[in-house]
């Protein structure tokens, strides 16, 4: 196991390097630079002022020099300073967004698993039944509604018409004066709609995935054998089949690690949530290279680690893979 993990870790290096080169290249080739975005067409700016700002950010140097500089700092885990007018350290900008993004994504992940796994299993067990068809339609309904439209409809219903839930944001204005349980309740109320909306789309994929896993497992010989031995159907399904059908879910979980900090610009915008999605989007649009690169690198590392983790867990859980790998 040890050498395998080491080999995988070493393999990450070229991939990571590739990712940084591609992202840097893309940011450089994209038209516009962080300075022109804030200075062009600004009557206050003359040419000298613009050059001055460009030099301040080191944009007057050739691209490869900029990249080398960035990489050198990166190796010392220095993400640099943002090119936005605030010139804050990139790591600060990212860290202040991570908690809320993580919270929402973990909650919605839990919600997805809690709903999708039972749905998928039941659909498989009762394949082609009314329940199966009904679930199919239900999960696709969730998938087929554009997120922002659904979000807005729910906001109007629960926020304005019924006044059950807050419309947007993370906390009430009185948050600071609340007691701890009240704070949790307040935060919870604000999170209901965003978590619901962000998990709605994922529900379809997960439950379909679970369904086909389960269908495959049910047809395996050992299940037939178990049935033949006269075991109770319940035991067969939940004890033998489910366990094996859940194995691929581990891989999926590993793959969704980077998604946990990813965030979505669309529902963050609609719900006015200060998450990673908005930060990334704004950084890309304003060509704030250091921030974009920082987010991509963190995302890439998490993806690769997630992949590795998934593979390792999988091989621990399923001895067949270990033999082959």
């Amino acid at each position, binding site marked *: 196991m040890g050498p395998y993990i080491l080999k995988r870790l070493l393999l990450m290096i070229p991939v990571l390097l590739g990712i940084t080169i591609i992202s840097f290249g893309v940011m450089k080739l994209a038209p516009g630079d962080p300075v022109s975005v804030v200075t*062009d067409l600004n009557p206050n700016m003359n040419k000298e002022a613009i050059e001055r700002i460009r030099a301040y950010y080191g944009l007057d140097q050739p691209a490869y020099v900029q990249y080398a500089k960035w990489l050198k700092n990166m190796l010392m885990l220095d993400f640099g300073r943002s090119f936005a007018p605030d010139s804050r350290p990139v790591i600060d900008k990212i860290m202040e967004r991570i908690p809320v993004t993580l919270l929402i994504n973990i909650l919605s992940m839990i919600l997805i698993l809690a709903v999708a796994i039972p749905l998928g299993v039941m659909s498989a067990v009762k394949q082609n039944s009314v329940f199966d068809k009904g679930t199919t339609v239900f999960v696709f309904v969730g998938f087929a509604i554009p997120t922002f439209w659904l979000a807005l409809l729910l906001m109007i219903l629960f926020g304005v018409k019924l006044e059950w839930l807050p419309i*947007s944001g993370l906390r009430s204005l009185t948050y600071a004066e609340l007691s701890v349980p009240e704070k949790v309740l307040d935060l919870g109320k604000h999170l209901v709609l965003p978590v619901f909306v962000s998990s709605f789309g994922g529900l379809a994929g997960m439950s379909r995935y679970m369904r086909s896993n389960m269908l495959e497992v049910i047809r395996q010989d050992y299940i037939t054998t178990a049935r033949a031995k006269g075991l109770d159907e319940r035991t067969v399904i939940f004890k033998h089949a489910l366990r094996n059908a859940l194995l691929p879910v581990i891989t999926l979980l590993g793959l969704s690690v980077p998604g946990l900090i990813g965030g979505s610009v669309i529902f963050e915008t609609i719900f*006015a949530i200060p998450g990673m999605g908005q930060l990334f989007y704004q950084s890309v649009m304003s060509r704030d290279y250091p921030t974009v690169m920082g987010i991509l690198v963190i995302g890439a590392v998490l993806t690769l680690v997630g992949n590795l983790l998934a593979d390792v867990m999988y091989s621990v859980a399923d001895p067949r893979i270990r033999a082959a790998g």
Partner: protein
Amino acid sequence: MTSTHGPIITILLVFLILTGCDQHKATTKDPSPKTETVTSIAETESEPAYGDMIIRGTIGDASVLLPVLANDASSFDITGLIFNGLVKYDKDIQLVGDLAEKWEIADDKLTIRFFLRKDVKWQDGQPFTTKDVEYTYKTYVNPKTPTAYATDFLKVKEFRVLDPYTFEVTYTEPYAPALTSWGQGMLPSHLLEGTEITESPLKRAPVGTGPYRFREWKTQEKIVVDSNHDYFEGRPYINRVLTRVIPDPATMFLELKAGRLDQMGLSPLQYTRQTNTKWFNENFRKYKYLAFGYTYLGYNLLDWKFKDKKVRQALTTAIDRDGIVKGVLLGLGEVAYTPYKPDTYWYNPNVKKWPYDPEKAKQMLAEAGWTDTDGDGILDKDGKPFKFTIITNQGNQLRERAATIIQRDLRRVGIRVKIRPIEWAAFLKNFIDRRNFEACLLGWGIGIDPSQIDIWNSKKTGERELNFITYVNPEVDTLLDQGAATYDREKRKEYYDRFQEIIAEDQPYTFLFVSYSLPIISARFHGIKPAPLGIGYNFDRWYVPKHLQKYHIAP
């Protein structure tokens, strides 16, 4: 000091769909005459009282809270509450002292002597003196400071401190916009001197001299400022100003409806269609006044089709600008004819207006050699059909709609137009900077000072400069230079009147419209007195009568 529509928006451009970019102006040095309160309920006079909080919605977060580094409307909105300049514009757009008690302009018009108020304290208790002004000036002109506002200060030849409350600046030549430039926010030297300003903690927790002191900033969520009890103009009535960042305009309006916002900028549709219910009339007041900015269709004068001014005049004649105001702004705006704001001192109403007349436009085009010789419904000249593309920045619905109406109008006279909205950064780099466009639909902010050299001077046609349509007219160059060097208001106006006549004759742009700013404010706020500058100029005098106060904020 001018500002633009374009760059101000930058990052949040995409979300600028409805709220527009005027919001910040509600509180900083800005808006304008022809202000009117729309809701009919008369404001009953009652006793001003301290207390309460105002919650304002904004689509974009501030980026940095030091005026020297800020570039965007949202940042200026907050720094305007915390900082003061030496001078400011009063409600009637007259320059008056702010931190400066008075100033004297020497007879040669080269030297200005400022006398500072002696009763001003920084919010941490330190006195405000010429030391701070000197530090501020040096910071602006320091080549290492990434500021957009160095230009005016770089014209200063000499800066002399005379005593803690008096200083003099000398310019190389008379420069009328100089005074206005001293309206930039003054920085506290005792907190910044010797530090790297771009890395100062004051960027996110500023200390100023203004009516409000910084309290809290949660990125992309809210910024809170509290009233400064020691403000030199007296303690502001409203105890707290909370600015909430709500990037989506539809969400923002829902929050307003749910009673969780006290102030936001409305879109024309929200203004006309959505806020006339009984509930809105009882709980809110709407205001409208001309914004300091106009929208135009600019022609690339390097393009052979647009070289002939007859063609440009014909294009303007063919475009139904009243239809655009009606269709795009729902009547909440005015047709623009010159690059000045219609209700200000500098505006010249007596210029050629080129009223909408498609028949006449066709005739003018024919005189310029454009006729439909091959009968395909499209005008042609020298065998080439009259087709062109209008580019505009992506995500601005008002501009896209205006372009769509222009497309229809020009089709009627036999010109085919394509519309292409482009993402902002790419728009600048690939199209504007490279002069790689035929026509563009954009907007300019209108400065309070009438100098517009950067936009119209033939020397400002270089890459990244603002005369990107390459407008060259020697008489305009001279007039603008004379205007900038003249302190006498009436004399100055003559130059700018003539300048406007020439621009109207040349039609390098088809001036489209000046839209209204449409703020809506909770009716519990009293003391709002619309004036030529808008409503925000006396924000520190707004108040909520005791019995109407909604939030209990400890003073």
